[in-house]
């Protein structure tokens, strides 16, 4: 039921830029930095260290040197640091992504900016318009609040737009600086787990409408899935000092209960089966989420190897994570013409987004 890719009306992914901030800290360095803080409330520090080791993350890239987080106490201080770092990293990743696609900022018609880790008005893509000299008729869609799903959902919404504007170029820019949201005073277990898992990073996807004469996997279809009455599974409580994490252990269970049926239904509508999918581009939620993906979709461990590697190397980058895995898949030279792939992520709502790719 699908036409050959040269006639395919689907928009295509030209390139994915990925950028990490400059200050690397190993997991053991971070545990060392947290120990004193934890000891204010907690008796068994070894248990907390084990929680940080159990997330399978070897280190994180931070927006600031580790000593410079201590003076950031108020929401304003954290958010000001976020804006500064988000513009710097955003500029770097957009330039890299456009270079990879052989395009310039003047070629861009629409920027979808996604984040859940800071607030800025004018939003980050507007600030980048001044730095990068996008055209003055640039369309901008800043999206706050989709959380980890926003990388996949951002691509899906940009593709919806490009179906209407087949000659246009759109960027999906994700900048997530999770370290600048950390509530050090919150010594609850969910916050301690989050502080062991999440890292900073930015990704930029360059997408073009079907009339572009270029190479890249096509986005054939997408599917949003909302899980009713799951508001407290994940999210932020907005408090005086910023964003306080809401994190439930029920995420892997939700994956187990839903993802298989979600994926199978979505694929069946496209005349496909799970066994037709050669490339699984999964959000690196955490070890238990990746295990739940593999188990419920009956995937061998190597099917999610890039997600596991990304989690280990840089941690969970919220919405940027799945785009890192997409970029690494595209640049691996592994996909062959005609191969099918699925990009999938989950986030607050609770919800999921599935994106069908064809090389």
């Amino acid at each position: 039921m699908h036409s050959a890719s040269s006639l395919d009306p689907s928009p295509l992914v030209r390139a994915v830029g990925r950028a990490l901030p400059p200050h690397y800290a190993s997991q053991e360095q971070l545990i060392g930095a947290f120990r004193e803080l934890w000891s204010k409330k907690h008796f068994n520090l070894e248990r907390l260290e084990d929680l940080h080791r159990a997330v399978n993350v070897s280190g994180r890239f931070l927006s600031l040197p580790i000593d410079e987080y201590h003076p950031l106490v108020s929401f304003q201080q954290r958010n000001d640091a976020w804006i500064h770092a988000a513009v710097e990293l955003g500029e770097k990743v957009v330039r890299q992504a456009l270079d990879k696609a052989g395009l310039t900022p003047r070629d861009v018609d629409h920027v979808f900016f996604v984040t859940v880790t800071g607030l800025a008005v004018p939003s980050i893509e507007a600030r980048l318009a001044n730095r990068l000299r996008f055209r003055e008729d640039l369309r901008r869609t800043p999206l706050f609040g989709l959380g980890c799903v926003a990388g996949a959902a951002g691509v899906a919404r940009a593709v919806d737009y490009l179906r209407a504007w087949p000659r246009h170029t759109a960027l999906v820019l994700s900048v997530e600086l999770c370290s600048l949201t950390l509530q050090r005073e919150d010594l609850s277990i969910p916050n301690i787990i989050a502080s062991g898992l999440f890292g900073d990073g930015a990704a930029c996807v360059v997408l073009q409408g079907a009339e572009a004469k270029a190479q890249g996997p096509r986005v054939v279809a997408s599917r949003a899935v909302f899980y009713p009455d799951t508001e407290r599974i994940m999210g932020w409580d907005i408090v005086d000092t910023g964003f306080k994490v809401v994190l439930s252990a029920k995420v892997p269970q939700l994956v187990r209960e839903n993802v298989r049926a979600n994926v199978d239904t979505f694929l069946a509508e496209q005349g496909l089966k799970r066994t037709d999918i050669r490339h699984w581009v999964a959000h690196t939620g955490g070890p238990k989420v990746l295990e739940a993906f593999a188990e419920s979709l009956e995937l061998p461990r190597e099917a999610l190897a890039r997600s596991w590697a990304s989690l280990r190397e840089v941690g969970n980058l919220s919405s940027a994570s799945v785009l890192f895995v997409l970029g690494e898949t595209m640049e691996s030279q592994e996909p062959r013409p005609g191969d099918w792939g699925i990009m999938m992520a989950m986030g607050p709502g609770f919800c999921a987004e599935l994106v069908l790719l064809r090389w």
Partner: protein
Amino acid sequence: MAELERDVVAEVRRILGEELDWKGAVEPSHDLLKDLQLDSLGLTVLAVGLENRFRVKLSEEDAAGVTTVADLARLVSRRVAETPEERR
């Protein structure tokens, strides 16, 4: 049930109510998983809360014989008795 064990049960009640939004009753006979519906995060929150309040360490091996709130109360009481005062 000894006094210390009753203190542990009271603390379990407090942690479930205040930190885990548990609205139901908490009785010594309740099964931690089946009756109180604790998941891995909930069990960790509970263990950390008890360790902080009673200044003891609970290990993975300890968990093997623990099914009910009463089992947990006995375990914590035993750890308290085994741990020298100055280390608590």
